[in-house]
């Protein structure tokens, strides 16, 4: 198989409300910056792929307007997934394996400020049996967190510690939305949003956009000194119904990690897409990450969570540390669906 690498990453700062008025205004700055960083333009890009969802702006075909943020003339090879941008990266990786083109542009955008996101996410549930119950995303995650407690695998204090560490890490991240040096006991005094989840155990709602440039083989080496090579990438799903799953583990993340080869070497850092604090604990176990692994140096989704973009940002944050020579081997992860139903895992390496 051909070697494909991340060579550039750009993101808009995650904020509660972005005043970009439309998709093109979100997309244009990050895509042009990602390309500019490696000295190329859209004319040099062989394939373009994006990820977004119509349920954030609340209208069908919203991604069509995003194309107007690109220089899509003359016509371009382009595709779109109704998934996180990290899955668009997966499609672009597959496309580059063909060998006829050497570069790809991947981007995603999401404005959570446009609607009541936790309620909207109920629409991911089975429309016949679960949606009518109004199971919002925080309540669903709370069921999972409680299952962890009931199984004796974690305590509320563990959740708080995850939140404290992520938001402390975010202090070094200019693009993070929520950051600070909080105390565990302080967080444990917050009221429950949905027991046992308190506000700080949940990700914020963010507006953002992100873009990544992929390149294959020699093209990657020409564009940057130290490309972040995708050594393995795989995604897996699980049964949809919460009642059919052991919510305290993530067999899909475990399998994807095995296929991606996470355990084949020492992991320096991992960027895990865990929108709720307890999910980081589940993912750490599934991916087999020990205490020596630096998890979410960026602050992760608990510091900034622009839906559809947070996963691609995990890839970008992991890759940027490899590109900068701060890590030799990094893991990037993205999740989709209620209670970690679907997981994508990749291993990124320097030379």
């Amino acid at each position, binding site marked *: 198989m051909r070697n494909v690498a991340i060579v550039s990453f750009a993101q808009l700062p995650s904020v509660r409300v972005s005043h970009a008025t439309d998709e093109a205004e979100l997309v244009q700055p990050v895509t042009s910056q990602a390309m500019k960083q490696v000295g190329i333009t859209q004319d040099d890009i062989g394939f373009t792929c994006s990820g977004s969802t119509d349920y954030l702006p609340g209208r*069908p075909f919203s991604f069509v307007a995003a194309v107007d943020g690109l220089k899509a003339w003359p016509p371009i090879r382009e595709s779109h*997934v109704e998934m996180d941008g990290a899955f668009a990266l997966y499609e672009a990786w597959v496309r580059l394996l063909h060998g006829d083109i050497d570069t790809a542009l991947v981007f995603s955008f999401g404005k959570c400020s446009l609607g009541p996101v936790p309620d909207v996410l109920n629409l991911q549930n089975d429309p016949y049996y679960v949606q009518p119950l109004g199971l919002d995303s925080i309540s669903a995650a709370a069921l999972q967190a409680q299952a962890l407690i009931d199984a004796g695998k974690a305590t509320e204090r563990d959740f708080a510690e995850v939140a404290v560490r992520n938001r402390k890490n975010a202090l070094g991240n200019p693009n993070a939305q929520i950051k600070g040096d909080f105390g565990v006991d302080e967080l444990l005094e917050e009221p429950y949003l949905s027991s046992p989840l308190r506000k700080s155990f949940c990700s914020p709602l963010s507006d953002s956009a992100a873009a990544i440039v992929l390149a294959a083989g020699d093209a990657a080496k020409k564009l940057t000194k130290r490309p972040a090579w995708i050594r393995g990438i795989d995604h897996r799903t699980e049964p949809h119904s919460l009642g059919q799953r052991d919510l305290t583990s993530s067999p899909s993340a475990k399998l994807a990690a095995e296929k991606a080869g996470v355990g084949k070497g020492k992991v320096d850092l991992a960027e895990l897409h865990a929108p709720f604090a307890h999910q980081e604990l589940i993912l750490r176990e599934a991916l087999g990450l020990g205490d020596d692994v630096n998890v979410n140096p960026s602050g992760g989704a608990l510091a900034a969570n622009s839906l559809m973009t947070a996963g691609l940002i995990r890839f970008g944050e992991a890759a940027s540390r490899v590109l900068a020579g701060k890590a030799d081997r990094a893991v990037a992860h993205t999740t*989709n669906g209620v209670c970690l139903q679907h997981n994508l895992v990749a291993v990124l390496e320097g030379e």
Partner: protein
Amino acid sequence: MAEQCAVVGIGQTKHRESRRDVSMPGLIRIAALEALEDADMTFKDVDAIVIGTAPDMFEGIMMPELFLADALGAAGKPIFRVHTAGSVGGSTAVVASHLVQAGVHEKVLTVAFEKQSESNAMWALSPAIPFQPQLVAGAGGYFAPLIRSYIRRADAHPDTGCMVAVKDRAHGMLNPHAHLHLDQSLEEVKAAPMLWDPIRYSETCPSSDGAVAMVLVNQQQAKRVKNPAWVKGTSVRTERTFFAGRDQVNPRAGQQCAKDVYDQAGITNPPVEIDCAEIYVPFSWFEPMWLENLGFAEEGLGWKMTMEGKTKLGADMPINMSGGVMCTNPIGASGMLRFAEAARQVRGTADQHQVDGAKVALGHAFGGGSQFFAAWIVSSER
């Protein structure tokens, strides 16, 4: 690319205005199980699934692949969701074929569906976009001016669109899966009420519930069947919706998409070397427009091919043998239905709408404001 890709299984539902007899999982399982049986496989044999559907809002579900994973036996496997507007069914098949060609997977199940009876597609296609005036009602409102422009530019015979409707509905009569089974005369088509001048009600596609599935495999696995359809070329092209000077009647993205698949398949003279084509014609007039865009007719002469009857089954260049989008339109599946019909033709399994001896066929889809294109060429020969 590392591997060759072949279609070894094809399945689809009976398409209807409303499939109240089945749930969404039930609908896609009909198509998926039929495709797997055709490929002599079960869900257990599938390495990965690629699913396509148009806006999630048509069914009121966000990312339906999450909820449909169980119905497709996807637990423990990769399931991937594509959405590229009206071209999505085609793009989905292209993504699935790339997984095989790149050597990532050996056996991929690809599925596309729409259950349009869950909502009102025409109004879902008429969104009020912030900061933009709401000018159109339904897709016809967007496309009618382009058709008027085509008629003026090509000085086309005004009956051309009606002739397409008569022909496609006659083809649809031969296809038991088709939604519309209408035996219509030219006079009947012409007498229908005008919706968006020059588009009459009889010249529009229906709104359907339906699903289609295909099994795509590599060269080794293609031995499972006697008659694989080999994928000889795939392509996607996109251009922006609005900019000064953009030709939406004969879009460059469509031309380049066609040229790309022809080049990959070694085709230099499409009307001679391609035996039949299934192309995305949601409104009758798009047949002559795409005949020109795809290189089957010279610019300005597509309507003559239609008027002379050259696009009928049994004639020189059969177009939309299945009855096409004019007879069946579950939007998210419509593109893949075109790709699947092309594969059926070269496999020789198109039953009553089979083109005798078809060896090379084109499948085509488009979406958005005539700006997203997907195409593939399939052949009975490797």
